[in-house]
């Protein structure tokens, strides 16, 4: 059984936000215009978070891309009244959009605020509609959405591997953000395989998890800057 995880090397990361754009394109994330954005209703499945501490000129600043952590003990799953969000056997925390009732309990429970809500029905100008990704659903209004580790890519990769009569290789399945990352700061793979890149990196001295003390056990692991 796989346990998919991601490693983000902050020393390589340049804060370019390619992951954000790649995710938008891959996952049919709604276009939130200026007015709605000003109200804070943007949707980002992965978002670059700034941590800027200290006072001028002695500033400790850090930029940190934050996808869904796909926690081992997610706070969101427990609270969903209809079981619309759940963790599958491979540890991916998924949402079934057609079951979600939009109570937004999971969004408030998630300590990483990774979940977004569709305040309105997502709309695209008709000139653009055909350019939506055909592998990912278009969410309706009133449901919660978040990063799925590009699970649809896993389905495709599995299918492809099976057609080619071989095992699924780790490079078969990578999420869009990892694929696009220009400074190769993101790694993706099977944490259960002790020799996979992500496993090896996750055991590095620089490795840390976000809000580790909450015991959510994220499957997204960061490597801190510096030696």
């Amino acid at each position, binding site marked *: 059984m796989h346990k998919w995880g991601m490693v983000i090397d902050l020393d390589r990361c340049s804060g370019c936000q390619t992951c954000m754009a790649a995710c938008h394109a891959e996952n049919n994330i709604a276009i939130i215009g200026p007015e709605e954005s000003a109200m804070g209703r943007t949707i980002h499945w992965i978002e670059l978070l700034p941590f800027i501490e200290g006072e001028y000129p002695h500033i400790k600043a850090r930029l940190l891309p934050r996808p869904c952590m796909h926690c081992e003990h997610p706070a969101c799953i427990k609270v969903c009244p209809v079981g619309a969000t759940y963790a599958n056997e491979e540890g991916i925390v998924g949402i*079934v959009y057609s079951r979600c009732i939009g109570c937004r309990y999971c969004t408030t429970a998630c300590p990483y605020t990774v979940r977004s809500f569709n305040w309105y029905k997502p709309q695209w100008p008709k000139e653009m509609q055909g350019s939506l990704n055909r592998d990912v*659903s278009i969410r309706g209004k009133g449901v919660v959405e978040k990063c799925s580790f590009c699970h649809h890519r896993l*389905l495709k990769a599995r*299918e492809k591997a099976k*057609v080619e009569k071989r095992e699924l290789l780790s490079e078969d399945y990578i999420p869009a953000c990892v694929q696009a990352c220009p400074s190769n700061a993101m790694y993706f793979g099977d944490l259960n395989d002790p020799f996979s890149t992500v496993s090896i990196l996750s055991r590095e001295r620089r490795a840390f998890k976000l809000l580790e003390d909450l015991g959510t056990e994220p499957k997204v692991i960061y490597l801190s800057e510096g030696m």
Partner: protein
Amino acid sequence: MKPFLIGLAIGTAILLFFINFGSSFRPEQPISFNHKKHHEQGVECATCHSYFKEQTFSGMPKTAACMECHKDSLTKHPDEEKIKQFQKNGEEIPWKRLYQQPDDVFFSHRRHVALAGMECKSCHGDIGQSEKPPTKPWVKMTMKWCMDCHTKTKANNDCLACHV
């Protein structure tokens, strides 16, 4: 007052009836396609539905596909003329879709046919033997129906396997 109430009841009943059955309207296909006859002529499923082994979808025949055989009149059927008309106008045949998944359900023909080795029959019935195009899906595609089969065949019953 009483007759009004009775009427109200009847009306509600009619309404429920319509909502129940009327929502599944029966589309008329633009061409009255005879699967049986084509099958008898030795036309394979994949000739018209070219993609079901390689893609998620199976595909409906394009006008050009029909014209490969029907370039010269093979029959006297009026529908043959219709196809030619489509061809002349550069249009595709506006096939009506019967098997439609809900918006967040992703079904892959390849996964079911090429990988799991299912037969077309399991979902589409004896369509190869039908003389008229079907007007409704052969099965009522409910989640339960899908999942029952998945359970039976020990296929993946993870939500994310279909809901993406």
